[in-house]
């Protein structure tokens, strides 16, 4: 069952592909950001799952626990999540402004407007 034993990696791969596909294939600016989020989330899950240890608890110093998950990836991913939130906010803010300027959030539409200028 080794193929299934690494199921978290399968999730990572599927999410990554899904996210990446959305980023590339979608012309809607908001959907692109959704895709980007899924893509990033796959990386987060990847990190978290590599911190996992068999029979380990959460990485908190408790008196009678010896096996716990590696805390470092958790810390890293906490930072990465914050960065991701900031990126999403930034991206959405841009989309809002693009919408105000062009009246559309479809890429094709916007390019057409630019070319007509």
């Amino acid at each position, binding site marked *: 069952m080794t193929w299934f034993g690494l199921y978290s990696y399968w999730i990572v791969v599927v999410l990554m592909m899904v996210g990446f596909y959305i980023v590339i294939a979608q012309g809607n600016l908001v959907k692109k950001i959704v895709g980007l989020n899924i893509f990033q989330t796959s990386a987060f899950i990847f990190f978290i799952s590599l911190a996992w240890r068999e029979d380990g608890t*959460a990485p*908190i110093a408790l008196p009678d626990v010896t096996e716990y998950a590696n805390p470092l990836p958790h810390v890293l991913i*906490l930072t990465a999540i*914050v960065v991701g939130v900031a990126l999403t*906010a930034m991206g*959405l*803010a841009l989309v*809002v402004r693009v919408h105000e300027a062009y009246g559309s959030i479809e890429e094709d539409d916007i390019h057409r407007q630019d070319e007509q200028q």
Partner: protein
Amino acid sequence: MNRYIVLRVISSLMIPIILIYAFYIQFHGEYSPGGGFQAGIVFTAAFVVYTLLYGLEAAQRAIPPEAAHALSAIGVLLFAAFGFATMLLGGNFLEYKVLLPNDQAGETFGIIGIELGVGITVAAVGLTLFYSFAGRRTGE
């Protein structure tokens, strides 16, 4: 708002609890899961709930956007202040143990300090983001 009396009652009970929970996470961060990031976001969440019920203007009377702006800067500066303090006291940047005579106490003090800075910044930035999105009207 009168039509949503249940919501109002429940949420006026909930909001204080959320806020207190935020403070709990904030100041318990060095012993248990938690810290400035989480606390800041939970704190913002309370305000989001408040805004949903009482409207943006009411929320902005409580914490004006300018204040949120300033607070986000102040949080970072607090963080940096601790960094510079450790440097002036002879340690490396953010080497907290030099802050107090006792190493252990110094580290605790330092972590609480910078986490407070982080918490303030995250809460303030979260609010700023929320205000700026919520404040937009089409056709503006």
